[in-house]
Each structure stands twice: as C-alpha cells, then as structure tokens.
C-alpha cells in the first residue's frame, strides 16, 4: 500500500538546513494497522505530511497503492488525497462554520459525486460512528470525542484505501480514547490500511506493528532493521 524508499526531506532557511527525514524507507502492506512512534522532532509529522501528499520531498521514491506518486502535480496529488487517503487529526480539524453533515460532505464535494450519492454516504458514515442524530449540529456543540468521530465519519464517507491518523486521541480522555481506538480497529478490520502517529504506548500497542522514528530515520526497536527492507515484496520494490 505504502512504499517509501530513501526519502529525504530538508527544510531550508537562509541560515540553516534541517533534515526532517533522512534516508527513510518504509513499507506498509495493504490492510495493516501501523503505529509510528518517536520523540518530538523525530520527523513523525513530516513523515505523515509526505505520506499524505501534503508535502513534497527532496529525494527518494514513494509508491502509494501501486502508483508512483514521487513527482506529481498539485491537481494529481489533490485527487489522490481525495480518493485514496483519509486524514484524522489530533485537533479534529472540523470546519467550525459547517455543521456535522456538511463537514462530512467536504471531501465528497471535491470528488464531484452527485447529491443523492453524497447524502447516502454521509448518512451511512454518521450512522456508523453513531452521530446521525447530530447531523445538523455545529462542531462547537459536540464533545471532543464526538468531534473526532465526525472526523472519522468524514474519512469513512470518502472510503479511502489508507487512513493517516496524527495523534487521533491526543486531545481525548481515556474513555474517549478507547472509543476512538475501537473505531479505528473496526475500520482496519474491514480492510482499510491505517498508519497512526502517536505518543501513546497504549494506543500504539493496539496496532499490528510499531515503527519508531528518530532524527528522521526509521529505527525499529522491536525488530532487526533488515526486516524493514525484507518486508518489501519483489514486485512492489521494482
């Protein structure tokens, strides 16, 4: 599903160049639930931005769902984000002026789906996260956990192949954290690949695999580094 090889990302200012990702290689298979961990400044967010085609990188190659996405234009990257990737953010990132229904509608609008199809998908996703009755509420009228469930419904409505979650439980209490993790597990069990950045060991433990980043590189503490490359199937590596 996600195959990165020797990715390098450098942030440059006039005075200093910061190597956010350095020779990062990673393979996540379709249907996997992977937790990415690491201390602050280890490159987790940059990795997620590059993986989500929200940011470009300076060197290396990246294949997403079998498609080389290393050097795409803005329109193509936007289209892939819209069709194949769903984002769950720590601070939910709902649009405050839009009600729940319209928030879930946003990615579907950019996909150009017809009205009845969008409505069906939105209602189905909201039902799945248990918030159909709150469809006309504004985000400010919901609790944090409910807002994150709306964000997950927004992802579900788009039916992506890959979900990138950036500290999805970072702003939630323990009960809501469990709810959200249960939901993510449920989604993963249906075949959606999830890559979740987290600081929480408890959350990371619920993933099938944990990957540790340090100084922009993958350092797998639980497995020998060679395993990362050994994971790459021969046809994908080509």
């Amino acid at each position, binding site marked *: 599903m996600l195959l990165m090889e020797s990715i390098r990302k450098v942030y440059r200012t006039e005075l200093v160049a910061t190597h956010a990702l350095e020779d990062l290689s990673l393979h996540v298979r379709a249907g996997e639930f992977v937790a990415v961990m690491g201390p602050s400044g280890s490159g987790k967010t940059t990795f997620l931005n590059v993986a989500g085609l929200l*940011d470009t990188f300076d060197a290396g190659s990246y294949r997403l769902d079998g498609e080389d996405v290393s050097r795409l234009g803005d*329109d193509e990257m*936007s*289209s892939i*984000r*819209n069709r194949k990737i769903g984002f769950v953010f*720590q601070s939910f*990132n709902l649009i405050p002026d839009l009600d729940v229904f319209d928030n879930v509608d946003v990615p579907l609008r*950019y996909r150009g789906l017809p009205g009845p199809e969008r409505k069906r998908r939105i209602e189905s996703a909201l039902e799945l996260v248990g918030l159909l009755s709150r469809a006309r509420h504004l985000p400010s009228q919901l609790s944090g956990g409910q807002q994150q469930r709306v964000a997950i419904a927004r992802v579900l409505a788009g039916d992506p192949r890959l979900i990138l979650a950036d500290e999805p439980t970072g702003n939630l209490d323990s009960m809501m954290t469990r709810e959200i993790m249960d939901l993510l597990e449920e989604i993963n069990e249906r075949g959606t690949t999830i890559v979740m950045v987290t600081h929480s060991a408890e959350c990371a433990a619920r993933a099938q695999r944990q990957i540790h980043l340090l100084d922009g590189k993958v350092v797998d503490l639980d497995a020998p580094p060679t395993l990362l490359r050994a994971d790459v199937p021969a046809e994908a590596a080509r």
Partner: protein
Amino acid sequence: MLGYNLRIALKSLRRNLGLTALTVGGIALGIGVATLFSTIRHALAKDPIPGKSAVLHYVRLDNWDPAKPHPNPAGIPPQLTYMDVAALLRSDIPVRQTPTFKANLYVFPDPSKGRPQRTLVRLCASDFFTMFETPFRYGAGWDRRADAQAEAVVVLGEETNDLLFGGADSVGRTVRIADRDFRVAGVLDRWRPSVKFYDITQNPVDVPEQVFIPFSLLRPMQVRSSGNRDGWKSQAAPGFEGLLASESTWIQMWVELPDAQARRRYVDYLTAYVSEEKKTGRFPRPLRVEVTPLMAWLREQKVTPPEITAMMVVSLLFLAVCALNLMGLLLAKFLARAPEIGVRRALGASRKAIFLQHVVECETVAVIGGALGIGLSVLALLGINGWAKTMINRSDLVQFDLSMAFLAVALSLVAGLVAGLYPAWRVCRIPPAVHLKLQ
C-alpha cells in the same frame, strides 16, 4: 461547485458581519459614485437619436464681421440669417430639411379652463417631425403643402394638450395662438430626449417645446426669436422686414443627407451659394461653410462638459481605490482562514478549487456591494432630478437605464476580480501541511 462555493461565501460573510459591512460598504460606495457619474455622462453623451443621427446635419455659414471671427470657439456663427435660410430651403439635395427657432407666443385656452399663457412655441418645417422621429399620440405632423401655404396648423405637446383639451384626441380641433386660430394636426406622445439635440444654442438639457407651428408663419405672424440672436452689422431697415433682411443670425438649420455623396453635393451647393452672395458684398470673411453631423455638432458644442467626463474618470479611480482597499481586507481575512484551507486541501481540494472558492467569495462581496451601490446611485440621481425639477423644470434629466445597470454590474464584477484575484491566488498557494497542526 459554484452553488457550493456560493454557500461557503455566504457563510463566510455571515461569520463576521462587521468586516462584511466594511468590505461591502466600500465597494457599494465605489460603485455608487462611479455609476452616478457614468450615468450623468451617459445621459449627455449618448446618441439621442440612434440610427438617424449620422444623416442629420447642422448647417452653418460664415457671414460674420470681416474684421474678426465670431467669438464662439468654432469661429463661425451657430445660426443663420433669415435671408440665407429662405435661399437654402430652395435646395432639393437634402431628403428633408427644417429651419427652426423658438418664440414666446400667447396660447389661449378655453376661458373656462384658464387664462392666456405665454408659451414657448417652436417654428419648424413639416420635415421636423420625421427628421427627429417625434412620437405621436394622436394624428401626425402637418404636410409640406401646409408649409408652402403657411397654414395655421399646430402640433401640441402632451402637456399642452392635457391643459387645453384634457388629454383628449384634439386632432381637428382649434386652438388660438397669438393672433389666429390653429387647427390641431397632431399631438405628441411623451418626448423627453435627455439632450434637446435639435436646439442646443441655449440650454441643451431643456425640455422640448409644447407647441409646434409652421416656420412659414414667421413672416405673416411677424414672429421673433426668443432664443439667441447674433449680429455684427446694424439693421439697415427698421421693423420686422428690416430684421428679415438683416445679417442677424437667429435660425437653426437642419438637413437630412442620406450619404456622403449627398453631403458633398450639398456642401458644393452651399459653397456656390456663398460665392454668389459674395459678389453682392455679403459674406466678407473667407468662404467657410459647415455641414456637421449631429453627434459631431453635439461634441463640438461640448454638450457633455469636460468636467463631467473628468468627474467620471475620477469616480472610476475612486472605485479602483475602493477595490484596492477591499483587496487588503480580503487578503487579511483569507490568510486568517489558512487552517481551514489546510483542511480542505488535505481533504482533496486542489489549488484551483481553493482559488475559485475565494474568487466566488470576492465576487459575492462585489455583487452585494454593487447592488447597494446601484441603490445609492439611484438615490443620488433622484436627488439630482429633484434639483433639476426646481432649476429647469424637468424631473427626468438623468435616467438610470438598462445600459447603466449593465455597466454597474460589470464594474462590480471587475472590481470584485481586481480586489479578489491576488488574495485568492495567495491563499491557494498556502502549503496545506503548514496549518493543519494549528487548527
């Protein structure tokens, strides 16, 4: 997607009503001022008789003082002497022609309806009505036979017909004007050209006269002009006949020449006429004849004062300043929305989609501002017309017509684009990743 973008724009405008009032108000002010001055200029500068103005020509001959030219900027008298008019009427080159001037005559209503009133009367030939396409409610103008025989026939304006005959069809009825009874040949419908283009020698925005009688009655009724009269030479003989034989210029002359060839022939005719007159000692200045198309005549006489054009230009510059001011406000507003834009980009919005979303918002501001601006300009025009009513007795001096409405809408959209393109471009270039953490 346009409907969706429009919904987002309206939500955004509702979010911060103070800022929205500021942006919409700025554009409304700019559009209001620009539309107001454009409308005033348009009223004065537009073709008063489209489709016909190219064939209508104003005739001038330079019979002025040999020592110095006529004091007007063109250096040629704007009107003709009676002698010359009488001679020119003999030409059969023009398809139609009319000498014309205005006079003050008494009109006698039925004693039960009112007292005699001094009324502005226009003397003209029968061709006047066809040449200037006057609209008729009842009847029509008189015919050329009435011109030739100096018949006492009259065409009444709508208001005078209301006064004399209660608005009824008065064709065939009699009205006393000065010393004789006139048979009504026709009644004009409402005729209010924004410029009194057939006679701009005095007030070019005056309303048309309400009574029209044959020019050929000038002599039998001894009608003198109540308009301008220029002369450089003393009248040789006294009295009315002396005036007719003098070098006083007081009659306007219009001819209808269908094409350039007819115009050339007519100019040749005038040249030959003046050359012959020179042999008798008249026309002492260098030979000069002018046959000027209507629109060129209006321009030459500066019916649209240069100050009005200058004010229109200034008002458009003011609109540009308003648009630039709006640009600054929108830029600040859009940049403050960067986190939301980051979310939309993450969810699949392309730069183009973000750009269009914000252009639609700018245009929404511009359209609402434009609508308010049109309202402001209409209010101002009502004020101007109110002033004109008291000053020159016409309340329809400046009309806000469809072309001005289109102009206002176009100006609004252009102002919206000018104001919005840069902020929309800036905001669509925001890297999506930067603000996602900041939400």
